[in-house]
């Protein structure tokens, strides 16, 4: 738990997050128009989405199923009866003048998410609810000096609004929450979690209280922050702003604020914009949404292994450290890649390679596991060569570099470059003798007590053998010779 240091003492952050996650589906929540990102403006709009008179909404069963799947993945209660309400407000990108949402009776109730934190500990964050609602259209304010452009392609696309309890206490926890929620939804296939394309957006609720206090302070809501990094930056800024206000004897005004990415600050929205009175009421065009318990159970049967379960299995079956397992399960693609490398091999060694050299290389190349230049099979072959002592771990790093550059297989490269590890006692012994003869002075120093020179001799032998001497054999022989 991280506290904010003020002038008069330490302050605790209280953070709750509202996430809008776009449901993965072909068609919209209440119309048959497509949801695909990047289409020509207004090409994916039905008369329902544009709110033409007399058009009626008909619910897309797949969106209901996706919401239930997500709820089950969050260990949450599924409400067998839920109701759609109209949330009334006027905005240029909302043609009907209301958003169909769920207010009093959401489809999913209380659940939880377990966060894995960097220090190896975990924390459980409560989920208050998840409900289904429609997205609005998209307004573009930067296309013309005096007009706003409106594209309704996004209008009517299904969203899941996922509300957390005010359980988080730091920006790190907020970041971990978003990553975990995104991972769960990606595993479930219910939301692609792509924050750049806006398919996952976040509102941050933050208040401050003195360390030790149990009463909540007045909160501010920071709207529509569209990356995990920005969420953490906004929390950092806003927490200090509130502490300064409170320590200066002022009060925090409950208000909606915006995160300004260029200035790196939060600022209040104009009060007119937030003067909302949504006048919710049940949508007369839609009957209550009733689910069959058996249908819910059937969906539960189809859930994949989720990140937490996978992490436990990796620790149990492959002997991984908790941290490595956590890194590997963060993305399903990484976890699958690791398993393909580890299958039938030394799990720990495989994990070291995947999380170390392999992820490092992907980072440097700006690639993902899915378009990696080295396949799981190819990396597995390299791990085999280390396991059967054909090459040392150090040489393997060079081989891996060459694999990235040439796309050739590990075994072929080892043969081609003559990198096969020398385990032959005679030839290592010969190299040692040469080095010891050439550095007789250092040998004398070593014998008079300068133990540290041992590393020098190892280095010299490795140099003459091109790093190919088996380190264990070399150490043993060298020790024998020097102490004789």
């Amino acid at each position, binding site marked *: 738990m991280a506290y904010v240091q003020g002038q008069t003492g330490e302050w605790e952050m209280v953070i709750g997050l509202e996430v809008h996650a776009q449901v993965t589906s072909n068609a919209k929540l209440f119309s048959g128009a497509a949801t695909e990102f990047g289409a020509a403006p207004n090409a994916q709009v039905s*008369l329902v989405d544009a709110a033409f008179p007399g058009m009626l909404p008909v619910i897309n069963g797949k969106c209901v199923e996706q919401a239930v799947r997500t709820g089950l993945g969050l260990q949450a209660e599924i409400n067998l009866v839920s109701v759609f309400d109209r949330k009334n407000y006027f905005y240029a990108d909302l043609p009907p003048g209301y958003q169909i949402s769920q207010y009093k009776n959401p489809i999913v109730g209380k659940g939880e998410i377990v966060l894995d934190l960097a220090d190896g500990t975990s924390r459980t964050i409560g989920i208050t609810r998840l409900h289904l609602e429609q997205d609005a259209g998209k*307004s573009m304010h930067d296309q013309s000096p005096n007009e706003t452009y409106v594209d309704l392609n996004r209008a009517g696309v299904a969203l899941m609004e996922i509300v957390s309890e005010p359980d988080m206490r730091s920006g790190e926890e907020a970041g971990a929450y978003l990553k975990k929620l995104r991972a769960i939804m990606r595993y479930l296939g219910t939301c692609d979690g792509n924050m750049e394309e806006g398919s996952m957006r976040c509102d941050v609720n933050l208040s401050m209280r003195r360390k030790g206090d149990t009463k909540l302070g007045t909160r501010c809501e920071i709207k529509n922050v569209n990356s995990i990094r920005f969420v953490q930056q906004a929390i950092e800024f806003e927490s200090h702003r509130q502490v300064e206000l409170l320590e200066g004897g002022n009060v925090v005004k409950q208000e909606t604020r915006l995160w300004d990415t260029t200035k790196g600050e939060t600022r209040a929205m104009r009060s007119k914009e937030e003067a909302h009175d949504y006048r919710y009421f049940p949508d007369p065009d839609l009957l209550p949404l009733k689910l069959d318990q058996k249908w819910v159970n059937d969906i539960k049967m189809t859930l994949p292994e989720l990140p937490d379960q996978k992490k436990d299995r990796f620790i149990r079956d492959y002997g991984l450290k908790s941290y490595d397992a956590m890194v590997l399960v963060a993305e399903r693609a990484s976890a699958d890649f690791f398993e393909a490398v580890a299958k039938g091999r030394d799990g720990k060694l495989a994990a070291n390679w995947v999380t170390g050299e392999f992820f490092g290389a992907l980072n440097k190349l700006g690639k993902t596991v899915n378009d990696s230049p080295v396949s799981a099979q190819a990396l597995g072959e390299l791990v085999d060569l280390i396991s059967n002592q054909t090459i040392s771990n150090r040489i393997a790093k060079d081989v891996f570099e060459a694999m990235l550059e040439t796309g050739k297989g590990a075994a072929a490269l080892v043969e081609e470059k003559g990198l096969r590890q020398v385990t032959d006692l005679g030839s290592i012994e010969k190299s040692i003798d040469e080095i010891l003869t050439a550095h007789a002075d250092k040998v004398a120093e070593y014998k008079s007590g300068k133990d540290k020179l041992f590393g020098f001799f190892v280095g010299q032998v490795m140099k003459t053998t091109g790093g190919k001497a088996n380190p264990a054999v070399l150490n043993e022989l060298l020790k024998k010779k020097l102490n004789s």
Partner: protein
Amino acid sequence: MSIDQTTVVKIAHLARLKIPTEEQKQVAGELNKILEWITQLDEVDVTAVEPMSSVNDVPLRWRDDIVTDGDKMADIMTNAPAKTADFFTVPKVVE
């Protein structure tokens, strides 16, 4: 519950309706009459009835997740008061 002139102004603003000052009192009176009429429902004892949002006891019809609509920009834009290329345009909404 009784509706006064202030409430009329507020509701009118939320509904983006322009009601001239001299008509506001009259509208308040009309709305109160409607409310009074609805208040008759209070005479019914509903303690044993579960809250409901619909009286139709039929299941909500579900649709398959198939794209069946779209690609009708011309229809969508027919009534647009202003447009540029394929966008609707409105007076600038500043954030």
